[in-house]
């Protein structure tokens, strides 16, 4: 691992929560404007987390904190592997491990609301996982490597041969970002039917950790969007960053313009997308390009 990737990794460790926090704030601001409200200040998520940190220390059992800590830890590790130029499949698998810890934290409380949330979280993982794996396979076929570092320095823009996969990936990002119409397991909207789902039984510092983990996770996911556009030149990187930011706000827009759909839709639609966009694009990569 050379110095560049060490810098990138440390940069991620330090800056990801800051950018993640600002993005979350902007998300709320933009959503508010779409709903003709003024909305909170941009760094409201930071205030929220700081307030959570100072709350009374209460928990429903002795093991939950451990699971949530592991969730945060492995989300951060996932991002580090990604920004250190690591293997994309390893990134996916580590992220799965992290998510399982979140699910276990919710299950462990044995509370009806968090259990429903946990099951839905698993269900969502089942929905998006094929498309995520196909995305990584697409990168491998297009760039000849699973390594982020190789893709970053490649001279072909992966997006050109991976348009279908790109659209499919944006589709499942809606689930990953917990946006309507697929915010089944937990949501930042008040209309959620199972209170806060997975996070129902988390409070204070524990809940703050979940928030921070999401900031880290979102930045890593946008990093994958960015990866579609790098071709070893500065303008490729610039396009990547612009598209990553645009796609984040696209998700905000989708979030505000769609009603919640039935849970059945999440699996059906994302598997159809994975087959139609993901698999066919992979087939084209194998046979045509």
């Amino acid at each position, binding site marked *: 691992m050379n110095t560049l990737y060490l810098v990138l990794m440390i940069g991620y460790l330090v800056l990801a929560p800051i950018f993640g926090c600002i993005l979350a704030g902007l998300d709320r601001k933009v959503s508010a404007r779409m709903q003709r409200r003024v909305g909170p200040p941009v760094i409201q998520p930071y205030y929220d987390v700081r307030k959570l940190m100072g709350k009374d220390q209460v928990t429903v059992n002795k093991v939950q904190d451990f699971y949530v800590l592991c969730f945060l830890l492995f989300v951060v590790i996932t991002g580090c592997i990604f920004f250190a130029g690591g293997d994309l499949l*390893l990134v996916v698998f580590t992220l799965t*491990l992290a998510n399982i810890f979140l699910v276990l934290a919710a299950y462990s409380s044995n509370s009806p609301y968090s259990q429903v949330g946990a099951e839905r979280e698993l269900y969502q993982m089942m929905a998006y996982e094929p498309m995520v*794996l*196909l995305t990584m396979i697409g990168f491998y076929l297009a760039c000849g490597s699973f390594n982020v570092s190789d893709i970053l320095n490649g001279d072909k823009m992966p997006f050109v041969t991976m348009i279908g996969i790109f659209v499919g990936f944006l589709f499942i990002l809606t689930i990953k970002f917990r946006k309507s119409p697929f915010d089944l397991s937990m949501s930042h909207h008040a209309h959620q039917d199972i209170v806060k789902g997975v996070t129902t*039984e988390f409070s204070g510092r524990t809940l703050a950790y979940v928030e921070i983990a999401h900031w880290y996770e979102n930045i890593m996911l946008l990093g994958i969007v960015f990866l579609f556009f790098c071709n070893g030149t500065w303008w490729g990187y610039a396009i990547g960053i612009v598209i990553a930011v645009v796609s984040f706000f696209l998700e905000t827009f989708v979030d505000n313009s769609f009603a919640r759909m039935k849970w059945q839709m999440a699996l059906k639609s994302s598997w159809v997308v994975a087959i139609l966009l993901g698999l066919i694009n992979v087939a084209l990569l194998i046979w045509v390009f």
Partner: protein
Amino acid sequence: MYSIFFLLLFPALIAVLLLLVKNDKIRGAIVIPGAIAIMAVSVYVAVEFLKGGTTYFDFESEMLNWLMLAIEIILCAIVVYLGIKHKKYLASILSLAQAVFLVWFEFTHAHEIDVSNNLYIDQFSIIMILIIGVIGSVICIYSLGYMRDFQEHHAGEKDRRPWFFFLMFIFLSAMFGIVTSNNLMWMFFFWEVTTLCSFALIGFTKTEEAVNNSFRQIIMNLVGGIAFILAIIVLGTQYGVMEFDALLELDSGAMYVMLAVGLLSIAGIAKAALMPFHSWLLGAMVAPTPTSALLHSSTMVKAGVFLILRLSPMYGDNTVGYMVMCIGGLTFLLASMAAISQSNAKRVLAYSTIANLGLIAACGAVGTYEALWAGIMILIFHAVTKSMLFLCVGTAEHHIGSRDIEDMDGLFSRMPKLSALMIIGIAGMFLAPFGMLISKWAAMISFVNSENLVLIACICFGSAVTIFYWGKWLGKMVAVVANSKDVEETVHKEEWSVLGLLAVLVVAVCFSFPLISSEVLSPYLLSVFGQPVDPIFATFGIAYVSVLLGMLALLVVVPIPFFNKTKKKVKENYMCGVNNGDNLSYSGSMGTSVNVSMRNWYMEEWFGENRINKIGLVITIAIIVVAFALIIGGVTS
């Protein structure tokens, strides 16, 4: 050489001895040292032959061949008789057909064919010997305590434990035979013995369900057996070949070779319980749990995939290769889906076994060294992990009175140590730093490299489904339920020592997989494919191995100081009503107390067993029919 004879004969000897012993104490005094001796000799064989590459033993004996034939005919006669007695005439007919083929071939051709090497051993056999010798033996030890409980649960019935232990040990002998036979006739003999043993073990309880399921098993495996003998006939009559190493030398483009390999693949598919033959393994669940553990982890089904992995160099870009790839891949996907709809823990484990066997078979059929590497690795990790999971479920069943996952609510509070082992096992089956996932990862890379779209789709969707069904089971177990009593004290000592040993094995295999890869697998792959690369470092690179080992270490070390300790105030759950203080009920609207009960999600209308099985049967049978039509029509690649 004598150590191998020991492995072939000693378990059979113990088996006969156990058949005669009625006293439980004496049985224990035979089983434990016997099992330990088998384990020790397996390890000794591994050490003795590991560096030697492939070693052949000629060991010719006309007498032995006749003896095997006689035993086979007797076994066939028994099956014919039992089939008539239980009105399962199909079993009788198949068994008779098999005997006719066998005798005809034996008397017309077999004696003209010169077999120079009857037995052999190489690195892959060593791996199998270790799996059978270590895991098989510890399952036998575990059975002692389990069967004691079993006898108490079935008080008043005849004590048939001598018969049970006889079968378990014969099974081990036959498995050692399968993995060391170079002579296909010998392999076939041992192959049929394992079929018969599992037939008797599945029917052990003699209930109507058990008898029906045991006949389903034998009918399906007889189909496989007939395919096997037909393959031998094709090879014997067309090429005069009856040795495995000679078979692998033949030109895989020729029609008759493809036919023989195709038939052998069918035998392997039937034994490994891949679709369309998978239903026998589900039926095997009626047997006592150690039987399931034995069938699923180290013996029987592993013989099926062993044969397919052995044939790996014959597969690849040809009709039979595609047939096995498609069947393996689809079995992986469909069985994983069916597992979602199951709440019976043993059935979930069974479907997961079928799925993993499908993946192993698919890996073997790709026919590249990296795929074979992945296949053998999955086989190893699966054997260790699955045996532990089965035995955990068996122990839990005897203590909570159910093998239903819904009844494992908060098992973590009731049986903490056992749950910890089960969590290691389940996590080992699908989560990141553990071995199964590493080998699945390698499998995925090899599928992508072989550019097979069906396999890519199957592994992507199958992995996603796998996360769901393991995740929800794991969740059930970790739930902390108030007021649960610890019921762990009555677990037998043998059970603890075996479960502990298996847990250590799971962790040890995970940490030592780079070593297994470089010391055992690489030389084997080199001898099979002639490519001097250590796949683990070619596909992953040293950095990733260290990342994975680091994560594993992290998972083992980090939890200890934090787990189950908190300075925080512990409060009740949110119930959307006033919690009665015990997290189990809340005050409803009319002042009544309402109990809370939570159930998992099974999605019957999507992943229901019947629906999935029907789809699987239709597609896989169609694949087999088309593949054989193509082969016989002369389309071999």
